[in-house]
């Protein structure tokens, strides 16, 4: 093979090229030809070789596909992105003299938002688990009877876990957390496998806070509590994210988030529904709760890979 000199610019040793020598592989020749990055000798060599020209055509198809337009940002989202970036100017140490103080207070890095959200979620989950444990213990006291050792063991384990997790959460039992815990007690209990197998009538006693439009708008028999504790509502076939968003509207403001690992996909909370997204059987999970609407994801039931995310902020 002819030695190939890079067409332009400095070229240090490649740490990835097969052989790390001067010869270009067929893929590199075809790809370089496609990009106009070959010298005249190499170009001529590619053009004289039918196999290489076929490879060029193959890679051109790939290249065109990668270059095909992506779904643009919506106007609202675009403006929000630009506003968030502009608000970072004072934080960069650049004084604008124009609402610098106000802008500094509105820097909306996702990191900052994520930290705030995480703190809130930890408090909600910890509080919910603590309340669930309390309810479980109370139920034990009331319902304890002969032959219930299995249930006792399961509930005891759940209570212990919940107590430990609540303690690990820094004892987040301030008044807000306590209110949230009380409101979330029933749904939180249904998300724990041990509790799901207990005698607690979780689906018959939805907490007031979750008896909202979400519950009433969900498909028949598909309250979030029921969804996580037993048969999941099926949202049916969905063709795109718009349909996915519409179908999951009922879960947008459900203010509960179960811990990851309790569902069929270890990295995600238990599903609240199932669906068939673009032909792929999917679990629907709430991945983040937020005041402006929950973020949900559709997970491939076979691989748990994310098929699509539904984000109200990006509607």
């Amino acid at each position: 093979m002819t030695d190939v000199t890079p067409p332009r610019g400095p070229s240090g040793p490649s740490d990835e090229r097969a052989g790390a020598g001067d010869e270009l592989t067929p893929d590199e020749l075809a790809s370089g030809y496609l990009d106009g990055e070959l010298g005249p000798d190499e170009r001529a060599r590619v053009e004289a070789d039918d196999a290489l020209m076929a490879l060029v055509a193959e890679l051109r198809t790939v290249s065109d596909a990668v270059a095909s337009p992506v779904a643009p940002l919506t106007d609202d989202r675009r403006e929000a992105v630009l506003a968030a970036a502009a608000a970072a100017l004072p934080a960069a140490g650049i004084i604008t003299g124009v609402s610098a103080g106000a802008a500094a207070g509105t820097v909306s890095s996702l990191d900052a938002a994520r930290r705030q959200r995480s703190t809130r979620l930890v408090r909600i989950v910890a509080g919910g688990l603590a309340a669930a444990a309390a309810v479980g213990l109370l139920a034990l006291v009331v319902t304890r009877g002969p032959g219930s050792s299995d249930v006792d063991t399961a509930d005891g384990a759940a209570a212990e876990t919940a107590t430990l997790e609540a303690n690990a959460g820094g004892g987040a039992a301030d008044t807000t957390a306590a209110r949230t815990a009380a409101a979330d007690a029933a749904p939180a209990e249904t998300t724990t496998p041990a509790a799901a197998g207990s005698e607690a009538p979780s689906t018959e006693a939805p907490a007031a806070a979750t008896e909202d439009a979400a519950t009433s708008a969900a498909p028949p028999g598909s309250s979030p509590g029921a969804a996580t504790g037993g048969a999941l509502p099926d949202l049916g076939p969905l063709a795109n994210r718009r349909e996915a968003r519409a179908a999951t509207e009922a879960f947008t403001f459900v203010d509960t988030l179960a811990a990851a690992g309790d569902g069929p996909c270890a990295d995600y909370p238990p599903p609240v529904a199932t669906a068939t997204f673009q032909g792929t059987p999917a679990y629907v999970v709430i991945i983040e709760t937020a005041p402006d609407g929950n973020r949900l994801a559709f997970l491939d039931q076979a691989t748990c890979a994310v098929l699509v995310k539904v984000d109200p902020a990006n509607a």
Partner: protein
Amino acid sequence: MGREITEGASDGQLVAAAREGDPGALDQLLRRHVDMIHAVCARIAGNPADAADATQEALIAIVRGLPRFDERASVRTWMYRVATNACLDELRRRGRRPVATGTETFDRPGDAPGLDSAVTDRLSIDGALARIPEEFRVAVVLRDVQGMDYAQIAEVLDVPLGTVRSRIARGRAALAALLGDPDGSSHGNSGASARRPRERP
């Protein structure tokens, strides 16, 4: 501040004005590039929601990096370097993408469906991009979405030009293999010879 920034100002002029605290210049600079940065992030991220968030983080990173821009690189190169890293950082923080190790080989099945139909499916493209090593994906995206030449990509990624050539070629070859075999049934460590069924010329 005080200098008037017109619509036709160069990126360099806009950066200079923005560094002096001109929010209008910053706005103009960001508007000029937001769509392309979003396109790059979208292809790197593979889904619109992550892409929008990553774009926001990329623009914020650019703004925060303005004081440190030393003008050794062109504004465009610097912006895309910052944006690419911000997109990748954002996706890594989410930690839910399949991460290829860079050691995989990708077979090209001889009897697989033709690429023409497969590559028209955007999900197939994004799915395939998600499965190739990150360094391949970024190089291919900068070339095919952003239209950078190899020298510019080398500058953005701070790697030798030969590495860029290799990453783009290997990335495209891997994509061709994946798109021709959507199930990934022939995806595996089957050796370099299996990666390219046709005879080397």
